[in-house]
């Protein structure tokens, strides 16, 4: 059977990995190329590169770097950030991305997912949703979690999947950065509502959080995290060993 996936996420700004990276043995700790290679070699099942650049120059630089990363890692690569049009899909796919993740772009232009899925296939389109509880209701947030769109999250996610999103990354704003574990109630609601892979994001503070995630919610396919991997608090090889000991199917 298919394994649960462990996915490090790298935020790239103006060609450099940001969000404090602290690794020993790498000559350049904020080089997306070196980090990508490091993760690919230490057993990550997939990589996510998120472009948080605001400027056009930064975006062009990101595209160049992406090409280099894609030519040195041989695991699936998802790219997100600044994806607003089909041309953006085309730009990153030509650089070697396998999947493209859309967030605010789909909120601004709800036809984007459908058009991209028709052109590139469902498996290529990933919906990334930033969700937060407001008065007890799951709401979709835009602009990196700063703006409440007012949309109810489960309906929004279901609609995007019906339009062709082949995978959902669910970022819980409520648990993000808290390091107290993934947002299990929110993940349960989403994974019961859709029949495409759901990737948990936001809240992982230690390796046990991944065990709790996959034990409690067997329907969740993958766990994504950034800083705990970057800071070496959780090493992917150790994490997979722990998952295996807990009878969770992983790849070595």
């Amino acid at each position, binding site marked *: 059977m*298919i394994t649960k996936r462990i996915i490090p996420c790298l935020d790239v700004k103006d060609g450099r990995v940001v969000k404090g990276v602290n690794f020993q043995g790498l000559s350049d700790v904020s080089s997306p190329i070196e980090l990508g290679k490091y993760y690919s070699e230490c057993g990550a099942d997939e990589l996510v590169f998120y472009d948080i650049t605001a400027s056009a120059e930064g975006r062009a630089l990101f595209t160049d770097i992406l090409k280099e990363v894609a030519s040195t890692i041989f*695991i699936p690569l998802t790219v997100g950030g600044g994806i607003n049009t089909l041309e953006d899909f085309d730009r990153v796919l030509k*650089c*070697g991305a396998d999947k493209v993740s859309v967030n605010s772009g789909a909120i601004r232009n709800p036809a984007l997912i459908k058009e991209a899925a028709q052109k590139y296939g469902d498996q290529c389109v990933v919906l990334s949703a930033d969700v937060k509880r407001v008065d007890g209701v799951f709401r979709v947030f835009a602009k990196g979690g700063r703006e409440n769109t007012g949309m109810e999250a489960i309906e929004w996610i279901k609609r995007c999947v019906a339009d062709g999103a082949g995978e959902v990354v669910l970022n819980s704003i409520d648990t993000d950065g808290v390091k107290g574990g993934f947002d299990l109630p929110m993940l349960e609601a989403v994974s019961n509502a859709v029949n495409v892979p759901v990737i948990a994001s936001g809240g992982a503070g230690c390796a046990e959080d991944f065990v709790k995630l996959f034990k409690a919610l067997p329907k969740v*396919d993958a766990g994504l995290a950034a800083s705990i991997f970057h800071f070496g608090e959780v090493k992917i090889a150790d994490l997979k060993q722990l998952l295996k000991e807990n009878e969770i199917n992983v790849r070595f």
Partner: protein
Amino acid sequence: MIGIIDYGVGNLFSLRSSFKAIGEEAFVSGDPKELSKADRLILPGVGAFGDAAAKLKESGLDQFVIEQAKAGKPLMGICLGMQMLFEKSYEYGEHEGLGLLPGAVVGMEGKLPAELKIPHIGWNALKFHQADCPLFEGIQEGDHVYFVHSFYAEGVGDSLAASTEYGKTLTAAVAKGNVFGCQFHPEKSGKVGLAILKAFCEVKL
């Protein structure tokens, strides 16, 4: 030298990079004259079968691939490229394949337990059916490779080289003489995938 057949479907960037990473020379071309100079051929492909088969035919590359394979040149189909090696596909209609291997491509829809998602996406383990298949020279049974597909080949007979379990047994790799195929993406399957590509480059016939 490896010739990667370009007939206008799919992104060949990762495949080309993979051969580079294992120190093998590879070129991408849609010209039979150029491709005939290659020692080995890769038939890639993503997307829909009908569309891809039509494109291969339009470019005249279908006959070229059949001739080269029949002349004994090692050929490996990847993903949709593997599916095209068979006689038929029932992906949205009925389409003729290259007929190099026995078997037909059918959908997973309705054939898997309801809780399993389609497409079959992710890392899954290989079970070997041909112990001496040259593709598996550098890997072990149980190694994981990366799959993305909603259709699979059945009725492949003794050309079945490896399978994987996803609610049912799915064809993962095929091999018969000089003709090989992988349903998974070796170019996205980490070290295991690169070892399979390397083994293909070293197949002796």
